[in-house]
């Protein structure tokens, strides 16, 4: 028999994503979510106490009664099942965290509740790509590649132009593309490899060093610049290092001022719950929405139905699709070249 709390928990099970603010450890985010969910679940009306039959001692009115003892059967609520005695119905909830974000970075963090943890595992075994925006600044180098670290070097950046930056980015992307093929674990001259590449499925099999599948500059206002990166198996520290290396490549130095994840697999900024919405009700809605979107994904959508890119998030998802097509083209030309 399912109590209201269990029913509510069943509705919470699944995947959802939150927006992790910068400067907060992901464990704290997870724990906050867990306590909020527990609070919501345990706030459901408790079940009525079961009654049990007990023999109560009655002060016998007439002294003639044998030994002055009469026991009467009475049905009283069993206090041993009272929520104040047994404690709240749920004391722990399994909340799993997807690909981590370190303390100083922000962005989409995927979380799973209950059974969702299994789905989460499967989800990360499929090697999804993630989108990041990196805020960089030329002219400084710090010991941990971020702007909060100890500054170890200063340099000029007047000579850097957008063209030079893009050339460096293109070189970087090219070398990463090569790495992608080496770690793909298929014979490059086979039909299988061609078909996988044509579908855009070519990628590292299991563990691999971080690989950036896409890299471009979306804002260039020296000394500040913003990069957009799609990558696999990355850590935030690696991305900061990439910014640092771009700076060195341009005969200057650069620090990363912020790492922000805007997409993790199918989870985009739009689905992410901000700090004020980390309550059980909002999480339930997000889980349901995620579930519904998965259902609709299974059905093929006609191209005419595809929504026009309006917001920034939309554009980002579209670019990731465009990126895939670009990659596909790249592979085709590569194959022609081989022939």
């Amino acid at each position, binding site marked *: 028999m399912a109590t209201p709390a269990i029913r509510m928990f069943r509705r919470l099970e699944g995947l959802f994503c939150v927006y992790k603010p910068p400067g907060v450890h992901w464990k704290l985010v997870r724990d906050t979510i867990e306590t909020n969910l527990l609070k919501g679940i345990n706030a459901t009306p408790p079940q009525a106490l079961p009654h049990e039959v007990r023999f109560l001692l009655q002060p016998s009115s007439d002294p003639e009664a044998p030994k002055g003892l009469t026991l009467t059967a009475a049905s009283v609520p069993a*206090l*041993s099942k009272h929520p*104040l005695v*047994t404690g709240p119905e749920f004391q722990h909830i399994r909340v799993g965290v997807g690909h981590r974000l370190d303390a100083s970075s922000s962005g989409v963090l995927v979380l799973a509740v209950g059974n969702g943890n299994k789905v989460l595992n499967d989800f990360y075994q499929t090697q999804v790509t993630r989108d990041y925006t990196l805020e960089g600044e030329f002219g400084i180098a710090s010991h941990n590649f971020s702007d909060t670290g100890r500054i170890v070097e200063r340099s000029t950046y007047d000579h850097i132009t957008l063209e030079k930056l893009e050339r460096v980015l293109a070189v970087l992307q090219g070398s990463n593309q090569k790495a992608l093929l080496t770690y793909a674990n298929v014979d490059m001259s086979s039909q299988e490899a061609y078909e996988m590449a044509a579908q855009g499925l070519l990628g590292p099999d299991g563990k691999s060093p971080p690989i950036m599948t896409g890299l471009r500059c979306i804002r260039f206002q020296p000394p500040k610049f913003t990069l957009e990166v799609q990558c696999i198996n990355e850590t935030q520290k690696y991305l900061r290092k990439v910014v640092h290396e771009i700076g060195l490549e341009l005969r200057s130095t650069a620090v990363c001022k912020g790492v922000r994840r805007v997409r993790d697999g199918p989870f985009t900024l739009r689905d992410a719950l901000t700090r004020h919405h980390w309550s059980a009700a909002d999480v339930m809605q997000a889980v349901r929405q995620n579930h519904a979107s998965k259902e609709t994904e299974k059905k093929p959508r006609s191209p005419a139905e595809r929504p026009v890119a309006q917001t920034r998030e939309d554009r980002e998802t579209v670019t990731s699709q465009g990126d895939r097509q670009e990659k596909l083209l790249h592979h085709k030309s590569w194959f022609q070249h081989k022939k």
Partner: protein
Amino acid sequence: MTMASACVQLCLRCRSPVCTKAGASTWKIYTQLQRCISTTRIPTNISSGLFSTRDHRTVQSGVRWKQEMCYYNGLMVKYLTTEAKDRKQTDELSRSDAVVPQNPLLPNTEALLTTESHTSLADLDAPELSPLEEISSEEAISISVPSIPPMSTTLSDYVDASETLTKLVQLGVNLFKLEQRPNVGSMLLRLDFDREVAPRLLFLKDIGVEDSRFGHIISHNPFILTESLENLEARVNYLKSKNFTAETIASMVSRAPYLLNFSVKRLDNRLAFYQQQLKLSASNTRNIVARLPRLLCGSLEPVKENLQVCKIEFGFKENEIQHIVIAVPKVLTANKRKLTQIFDFLHNTMKVPHSLITKFPQTLNCKFLRLRERHLFLEYLGKAQYDPTQTNYISLDRLVSLPDEAFCSEVALASLEDFDFFQKTL
């Protein structure tokens, strides 16, 4: 260990006289008792009485032991005691058809020997009740199956049986939380409601604490039930002598449950510390203590540390600290790291001068994330202007204390969705 083994022996010896009628159930009790003694949960006088008599008068001691065991049960369940007496009577009646002597209270070495040598046989020989045999309802009542385990990790086994615990649950005491604290569970079990709990509750009621707060107070401080009434009275009188009004004392006690568990000397120490360290007037000291009675309960070290942080690290002047503390006493007990984080952001990022922070000390009390996201939002909108002498001034008070909806509509003049979107760009 010796005690436990002695008990096992004793149990074996006095098993046969009593395991005739209510055989199964009494045997259960004995095995339970063994465990009891090995965990020393029964009063010590039982075991001591037992050891003094065990050499010669084993049967008798066994009987007495049984009585005491009933007493032990009665410790937890009052009404069970009488039933146990009943059961003893039936036992004594049933002894007539058992192999043991008629008068068990007389020491009889012969009987002792027989019972000792035939412990297992006596069990089989005794005319046991068939499980299919029908018994009358009076008999059914007289057979009581003890449902209370002698030891348990949770209080829920005893709640239905113990009058004290039942009443405490009805008061709204969170037993689940209390039983997780060491020794609190057994302390609560040992309490007698009418003699120990009720007078203290009445005392709390007398000083003006509302009934609905009792659950909260006892959930947080169960030890108030073991504090002597004279002590409690002395502490309340002390507070009264310091010119706290009756209502203030009531609200202080209900908000800081541990307040009355501290000695008068300690309370006096605390009050003197705040008055001298902050150079406050008597009425101001009373004021901050009344608003945050926790100050009198906690350790003074973190408070001293916070004062040093304010003075040396933040660079507040003494009168500024005084003003801040009078307005927001919570600054004294706040986490030092969080306080530093907020001040750092206020002073170095938002460029708010000390004088303005002193004017709005509640900014030091707010959440860091909330302050940061609101400031950055205002900065993004070009409205972050906290200087009261210039136009478009936004007061720090409104910045931190308004709820999100009001902040967006009144201060930022933007919609809540915009604020939400903005947070996702941080």
